[in-house]
């Protein structure tokens, strides 16, 4: 049982703050690090993996700092973003090299086991240069898993995987988490994180915006106020009727239509159709104005 502890960790590069005062404890099980691109997820993972020094604060893995301590890699595995690998090696040679570098007593057996875990036995004797993006990702996961680390950190592991590979990888991470290992992976896609992780840490603009159980965070995300743009046969009359509804918090009349702030997503979507019919107003367009993930995240930090 190995946990990762961060206390007031910040990391900046010149004037750019990549990670801002993050405090969290990550224990065994699967933890998803969710946030939009540029939120500092990669930087945070690199700090946890000992490939970066916190500018301020304290970070420990299994009770000792990760920075400048190669011994940490006996209990930690890292899968970086991107596809870097020794492309001239075969998958099997690559994982075996990793096993040897970890000074495992039986590197061949460890490599075979890790390759089996990621379901790459078939193509393992082909050169990595011939692999698809998803296969490269899996062989890199095998190399990071070969020494059965207590802690496994993965940066955007599902990028470039097809749905079947994605399911397989999610299942693998889930099994490792259930077995008591500490698994942390980053993603900018809510659904990916929701599938596998029990705990979610949401990062926005370098800060920890929300943290906890997946269901609680999902509720935070869906029960937030929504903005819709509505265009109809008579915007002014529709606006007047809408403001009388409890699900509506505000209406603004603009040249492009009505901007409606709804306090409850579900109630508003059923209300508006009924209302328009009762008033005899033709609805032309109903657009959610802020459904991008960024606005969901922005709401969480506000």
């Amino acid at each position, binding site marked *: 049982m190995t946990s990762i502890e961060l206390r007031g960790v910040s990391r900046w*590069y010149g004037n*750019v703050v*990549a990670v801002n005062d993050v405090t969290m404890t990550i224990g065994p099980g699967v933890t998803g690090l969710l946030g939009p*691109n*540029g*939120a*500092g*997820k*990669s*930087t*945070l*993972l*690199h700090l946890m*993996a000992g*490939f*970066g*020094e916190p500018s301020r604060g304290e970070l420990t893995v299994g009770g000792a700092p990760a920075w*400048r301590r*190669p*011994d940490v*890699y*006996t209990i*930690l*595995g*890292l899968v*970086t*973003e*991107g596809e*870097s*690998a*020794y492309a*001239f*090696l075969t998958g099997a040679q*690559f994982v075996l*090299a*990793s096993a*040897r*570098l*970890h*000074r495992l007593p039986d590197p061949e057996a460890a490599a075979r086991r890790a390759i089996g875990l990621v379901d790459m036995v078939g193509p393992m004797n082909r050169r990595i240069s011939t692999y698809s993006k998803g296969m490269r990702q899996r062989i890199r996961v095998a*190399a*990071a898993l070969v020494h059965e680390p207590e802690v496994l950190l993965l940066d955007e592991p599902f990028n470039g995987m097809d749905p079947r590979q994605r399911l397989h990888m999610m299942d693998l991470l889930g099994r490792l988490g259930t077995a008591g290992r500490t698994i942390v992976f980053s993603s900018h896609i809510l659904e990916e994180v929701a599938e596998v992780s029990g705990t979610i840490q949401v990062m926005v603009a*370098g800060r920890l915006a929300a943290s906890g159980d997946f269901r609680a965070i999902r509720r935070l995300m869906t029960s937030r106020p929504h903005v819709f743009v509505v265009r109809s046969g008579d915007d002014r009359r529709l606006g007047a009727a809408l403001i009388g509804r409890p699900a509506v918090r505000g209406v603004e009349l603009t040249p492009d239509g009505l901007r409606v702030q709804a306090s409850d997503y579900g109630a508003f979507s059923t209300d508006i159709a009924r209302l328009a019919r009762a008033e005899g107003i033709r609805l032309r367009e109903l657009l959610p104005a802020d459904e991008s993930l960024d606005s969901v995240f922005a709401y969480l930090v506000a």
Partner: protein
Amino acid sequence: MNFDPTIASITVRAALGRRRALLYAIPPLILIGVSAVLRLTSPADPSWPARILGDFGFSVVLPLTALIIGTSVLGAEVDDGSVIHLLATPVPRRVIITTKVAVATVATIVFAAVPELIAGLIAAGPRLALGLFIGAVAAAIVYNALFVWLSTATSRALIAGLGYVVIWEGVLANLVGGARILSVSHYGLAVASSVAPGHALRPGVGLVTACVLSAVIIAVTLAVAVRQLGSFSLRGETA
């Protein structure tokens, strides 16, 4: 144990793939070819072996071969990110650096020191050939320690190394005698000329100075390179 066979074999395959090995083979082949041609055409002039194999060999072929190999054994992996597969292991950083320097040195010996030996045999016989070979081996070690360190210190190691070889050793050391004291190719020449005296090799430093400074450079660059590799940082998406 400061040498890791797994790292060495990956390094050899990465830095010396088939096509690249052909590229490295061109300058030494020129060196050997020129020596053979001169041996056949002007055997009367006694000083040309020292000019071609000493001056040209030690200030062009040897340093440039060491530069390309020494900056790529670790630098190429740092550039494409694959070095993380070495660094995310408990292998001591000291072992990574010394293995990289060892592989680069052996490759430099194959592509620069052995050709000096062969060309020396063609040009003037075993004494000069042996001197050139030992001098080139000594210089290869110092050059590669220097260039591997450069590739941990800057992402522009090739440019920095080229600046040293061309501007410092090529221009300054020729114009200003004092600059030769910090010229690795003159250390090599000093060793060569002490093994093969009387061949007009013209080293700019004495043997003792060359040996002491070589040892200091190797020790310092290795230590700093190990330290820098231990502080290797990955830049995140916001960088």
